[in-house]
């Protein structure tokens, strides 16, 4: 580990705060149950799930994954910039992260609109129930994440030095990375499984 990393986050540092991590880990467990339930039901109705999955736009799903990964990259850089007192870069990097996250949301809404226009809704069959519910719950998390990042970014631009603390910057970053992490697992399960 480079000297700069050692200065940044010493070993034993909890980014954000412990309460936020309890929530993050709990959320990850809830999603793990959704993932498991999906895979189990998929195995029981393989042909139905395969046929339905073919309707999804794999390329849009992949694009969304790339957008969210890039968004996380910007936010991670932003948190590190905050720690190194590169103050003018924090709101810029967070804004770039918010931009990519917003692009994800737009793509997702386009996907939903296309599916619904083609007659596929949450009640169409079991696969589409999972598709809409899982990506829908994820979408809500994404919106919450965007709101958190936006509040932090707006407060960072204050000139009176009363901006958000490092704990807030790290915490909102961690929540956002969780949103990214959940999509990283969701994408192959819904769009790519053979």
């Amino acid at each position, binding site marked *: 580990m480079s000297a700069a990393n050692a200065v940044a986050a010493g070993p034993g*540092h909890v980014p954000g705060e412990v309460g936020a991590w309890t929530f993050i880990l709990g959320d990850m467990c809830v999603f*793990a149950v959704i993932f498991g339930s999906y895979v189990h039901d998929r195995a029981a109705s393989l042909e139905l799930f395969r046929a339905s999955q073919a309707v999804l736009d794999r390329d849009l799903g992949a694009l969304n994954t790339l957008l969210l990964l890039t968004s996380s990259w910007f936010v991670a*850089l932003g948190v590190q910039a905050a720690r190194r007192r590169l103050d003018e870069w924090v709101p810029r990097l967070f804004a770039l992260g918010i931009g990519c996250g917003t692009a994800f949301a737009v793509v997702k809404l386009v996907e939903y609109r296309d599916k619904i226009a083609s007659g596929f809704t949450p009640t169409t069959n079991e696969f589409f129930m999972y598709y809409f519910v899982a990506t829908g719950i994820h979408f809500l998390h994404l919106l919450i994440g965007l709101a958190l990042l936006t509040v932090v970014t707006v407060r960072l631009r204050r000139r009176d030095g009363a901006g958000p603390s490092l704990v807030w910057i*790290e915490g909102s970053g961690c929540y956002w990375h969780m949103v990214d*992490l959940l999509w990283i*697992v969701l994408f192959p399960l819904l769009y*790519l*499984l053979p």
Partner: protein
Amino acid sequence: MTIGALLRGTTTRVWLLLILLTLASWWLGSRREGIPTEGAERAAVSLVVVALLKARLVLGHFMEVRTAPLALRLACDAWVVVTAAVLIGLGAAG
């Protein structure tokens, strides 16, 4: 540390690796026509493993769990391992 040095650091390398793994999975998931059963199972396991490895990279580097207290590191690794095992186990049961 300057912004340039930050941009050239580990975080960017991890991001590039995540992008590559995503493209590899996307390619793997695109080769679907006419795959024999064992090929499909192997592909499914590969996709799950790569996904959880990516998740672990995000946890470790972006969420900085790598430098977090042992309890948090263990909890996150437990989530990665259990989730992968459950997904592979339940998927193969079909």
